[in-house]
């Protein structure tokens, strides 16, 4: 995937058959909430803790940037895991990630630096900032998200809800029949 999509009717937005949890926007509990969700995933797709890490980033964005860590605001999470696929949808009560167009342009320039192995210029594109970013924001989570979630990273038009999906290659069973 080379860009974040905006599509209310995207296939990844369909919550049917998914588990659901909601959390207060408590910054201190982001990793704990993530663990509650990831424990439903089969060990085969956890890849040590990569799945946890990627989900934690999305929950952090919802808690911190969406709901601005207001404990009265909820983060809603729909999720489903199998050995072949992980899907998650996260909705917050915030104003939405309105900088998607800017982010996509920034990411395209970043990818140009990378394909040219131009690490001098890349220094200007290692971290995406907005006026709301603080020193603790890495500004790099969504670059990795786009790489990791190979079915896409999709926001609603209002941009306070993100859906992601990843397929995993089927593991060889080790039994060869011929």
């Amino acid at each position, binding site marked *: 995937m080379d860009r974040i999509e905006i599509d209310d009717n995207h296939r990844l937005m369909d919550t049917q058959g998914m588990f659901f949890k909601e959390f207060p926007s408590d910054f201190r509990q982001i990793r704990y909430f993530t663990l509650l969700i990831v424990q439903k995933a089969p060990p085969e797709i956890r890849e*040590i803790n990569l799945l946890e890490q990627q989900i934690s980033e999305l929950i952090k964005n919802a808690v911190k940037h969406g709901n601005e860590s207001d404990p009265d605001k909820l983060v809603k999470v729909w999720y489903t895991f199998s050995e072949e696929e992980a899907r998650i949808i996260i909705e917050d009560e915030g104003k939405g990630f309105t900088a998607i167009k800017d982010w996509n342009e920034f990411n395209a320039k970043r990818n140009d630096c990378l394909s040219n192995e131009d690490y001098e210029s890349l220094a200007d594109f290692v971290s995406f900032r907005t006026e709301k970013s603080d020193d603790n924001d890495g500004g790099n989570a969504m670059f990795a998200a786009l790489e990791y979630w190979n079915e896409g990273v999709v926001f609603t038009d209002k941009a306070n809800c993100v859906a992601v999906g990843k397929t995993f290659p089927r593991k060889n069973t080790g039994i060869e029949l011929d």
Partner: protein
Amino acid sequence: MELTVRKSKHIYIIDIEGEMDLYNAYKLKELVGKMLEKNISHFVVNMDQVEYIDSSGIGALIYVSSALKKKSARLVITCVHGSVKKVIELTKLTGYFPLEDTLKQGILKLMKG
């Protein structure tokens, strides 16, 4: 996350142990800031005991890389492995960070120049 500093001649090795996440990644930035004030110029950040990193941890490594570059100090990051390596690969920063496989290789690299 625990940070300990040891010294090998003029080279300062920062050993990181634990999880480098949104709750504690800032500690590395603070430590390196203080070390720069003392005009330390050769740094190894040893990630041998780090099993988890998130975007804040990656952000701290980016901050350290650029802060040291500005001061013309030298840096190597050593022993990145497991999911930490995967997150750096996903962020496509493998070529951006001065990575070395082992602590010994990192120290040798800093000794050369």
